[in-house]
């Protein structure tokens, strides 16, 4: 990796490589590019909602397309590929193997992402990332909707291939001297999330095909006019995508498990409880999907079952938080940039979880469901926890990838601004939801509270936007001109690191 910048190769050599660090680099660059593209759409949404009435986005259709592609991009083209980037760099090294188990499959899994991204962006569908039928069948304009369906289909296959690769690498290719109980928690997080992908994704893959044939008019699975049931789609979708939430969050927690002990200069408080919580989350993650559907007319019994299933996930998440705090307790902590992101991420993870408990409680859900509360709630996970963990990890792996140090001051400014922005945006959105503002609306009536809170949210979003520009400048400038890093101990905290740097790339 480091050699990339010191001893450059032609770009096609990296593109056609199957080595895990090369594929990791491709994943990394692609996912960060999509982070900025999806983030730009978020800023457009927020600028539009600063005031009631049409501002910068001319019409509702464009607005609906923008928030659909925003969500799809950041979930499927940023968070998941970014986790794959980290996994590609670190998992083989953590299990002491020369590469991923199936290097060609690994490269294929990556190369499915650019065409899928192109389909999603060139189509620019408008039916939300949930593709809700019957709207998506009878009302959503094609070919955008069909392109979205094909894009997601390809991404699903890519996820499954990647997951198979991680599972085999960890279980079958780990060094014979290493028991599964010695595999680092970051690798454990990939094992857990990959197992969830294998179990969860096929359901949505089936639902996507049914959606497509419904759109073509040859079937009516979800079309009531042909005897179908839209609620069936909701079950199939959420059976995949509630566990998928854990697919997204578990690797980010794994990244924090790498950062927090490193900068606390202590071993993790309880390695076993970390593993236990990962495994428990992967299982109970499957018992809560229909809490997204309380308002579809579910019976009291169904709601009760899924409320219990949802609340059951809380102790496992709380164990992670406990583990992090207990590790930091009485430690000589060095607050370098990655550590600040990880700690900020934990704080926001806790807040998001607390809000989630309120959502899960049946009567309260009817107050929060489909309002901005929900938008704030899941963004505290995807932005506050997952993106914070991921960005912290990006800073952490930066010296290994480039051989240079990023600018520490800019990194800290990036964190402070992003943290303030995130709190302003997503905490305020919770309150806005309690005041009844529905999500996914292009315009809103001039209710004074709504206007005030939307303006706070927009200001917060712009603060995040500026901090991300600082981040981009830092990454680009430092990868070429930054100080050379001490790759033995770039952060000056001692201890043994996992060095992607030491991965032998045959191309060099």
């Amino acid at each position, binding site marked *: 990796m480091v050699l990339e910048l010191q001893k450059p190769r032609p770009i096609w050599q990296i593109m056609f490589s199957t080595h895990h660090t090369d594929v990791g680099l491709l994943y990394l660059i692609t996912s960060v590019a999509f982070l900025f593209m999806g983030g730009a759409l978020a800023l457009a949404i927020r600028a539009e909602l600063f005031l009631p009435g049409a501002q910068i986005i001319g019409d*509702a*259709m464009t607005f*609906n397309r923008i928030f659909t592609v925003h969500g799809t991009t950041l979930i499927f083209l940023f968070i998941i590929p970014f986790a794959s980037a980290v996994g590609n760099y670190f998992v083989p090294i953590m299990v002491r193997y020369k590469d991923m188990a199936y290097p060609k499959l690994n490269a294929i899994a990556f190369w499915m992402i650019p065409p899928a991204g192109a389909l999603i962006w060139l189509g620019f569908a*408008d*039916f939300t990332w949930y593709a*809700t*039928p*019957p*709207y998506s069948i*009878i*009302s*959503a304009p094609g070919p955008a909707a069909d392109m979205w369906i094909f894009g997601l289909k390809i991404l699903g296959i890519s996820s499954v291939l990647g997951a198979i690769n991680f599972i085999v690498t960890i279980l079958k290719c780990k060094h014979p001297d290493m028991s599964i109980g010695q595999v680092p928690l970051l690798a454990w997080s990939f094992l857990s999330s990959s197992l969830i992908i294998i179990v969860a994704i096929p359901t949505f893959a089936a639902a996507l095909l049914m959606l497509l044939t419904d759109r073509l008019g040859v079937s009516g699975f979800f079309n*009531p*006019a042909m005897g*179908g*049931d*839209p*609620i069936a789609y909701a079950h199939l979708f959420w059976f995949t995508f509630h566990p998928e939430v854990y697919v997204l969050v578990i690797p980010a927690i794994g990244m924090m498990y790498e950062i927090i002990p490193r900068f606390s200069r202590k*071993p993790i*408080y*309880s*390695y*076993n*409880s970390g593993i236990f919580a990962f495994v428990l989350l992967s299982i109970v993650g499957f018992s809560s999907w229909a809490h997204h559907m309380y*308002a*579809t*007319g579910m019976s*009291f019994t169904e*709601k*009760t079952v899924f*409320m219990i299933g949802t*609340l*059951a996930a*809380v*102790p496992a998440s*709380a*164990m992670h938080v*406990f*583990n992090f705090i*207990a590790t930091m307790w009485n430690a000589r902590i060095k607050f370098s940039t990655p550590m600040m992101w990880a700690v900020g991420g934990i704080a926001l993870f806790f807040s998001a979880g607390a809000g989630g*408990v309120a959502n*899960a*409680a*049946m*009567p*309260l859900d*009817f*107050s929060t*469901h*489909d*309002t901005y509360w929900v938008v704030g709630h899941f963004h505290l996970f995807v932005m506050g926890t997952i993106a914070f963990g991921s960005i912290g990890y990006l800073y952490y792996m930066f010296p290994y990838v480039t051989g240079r140090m990023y600018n520490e001051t800019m990194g800290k400014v990036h964190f402070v601004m992003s943290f303030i922005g995130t709190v302003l945006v997503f905490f305020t959105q919770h309150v806005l939801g309690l005041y*009844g503002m*529905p*999500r*996914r*609306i*292009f*315009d*809103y*009536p001039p209710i004074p509270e709504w206007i005030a809170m939307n303006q706070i949210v927009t200001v917060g979003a712009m603060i995040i936007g500026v901090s991300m520009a600082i981040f981009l400048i830092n990454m680009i400038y430092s990868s070429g001109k930054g100080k050379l890093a001490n790759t033995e101990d770039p952060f000056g905290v001692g201890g043994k690191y996992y060095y992607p740097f030491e991965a032998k790339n045959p191309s060099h």
Partner: protein
Amino acid sequence: MSGHSNWPEWIYVGVVIALMVWVGAEAWEAERLVEHVPADAKIIKVTGQQWFWTFEHEDGTKEIGELHVETGKAYKFEIESKDVNHSFNIHDYVILMDAIPGRVNTVWFAPTDVGEHDIQCREYCGLIHYNMRGTLYVEEPSS
């Protein structure tokens, strides 16, 4: 991992589980009460379609975009949709129920005070979803 005792974590996990049990029990009790529809509730048929609400009272009178009800009476909404999914919402009364084509969902309320409240659609339903709004007028009983 090894060598130190783990009792603080056990206590902590115990506290979290106790909290969740409490939240779950409270929610269960509250929802059970909320779902108990009074026997004398008057039925209002609510139909969602792109992008407005239609209301039909028991006596056959229809209203579009606005709904007049009286204080002191219980009303049961029977909610359906003519095209795509919508969600019938009177936020001030925490009334929220999806309108789904092919099925009838019910929810009830009993307004207590005279006033005007917003009715809106809370499930994405396309182009003018943002403006699928109406007004609830709660009035004194006429007789």
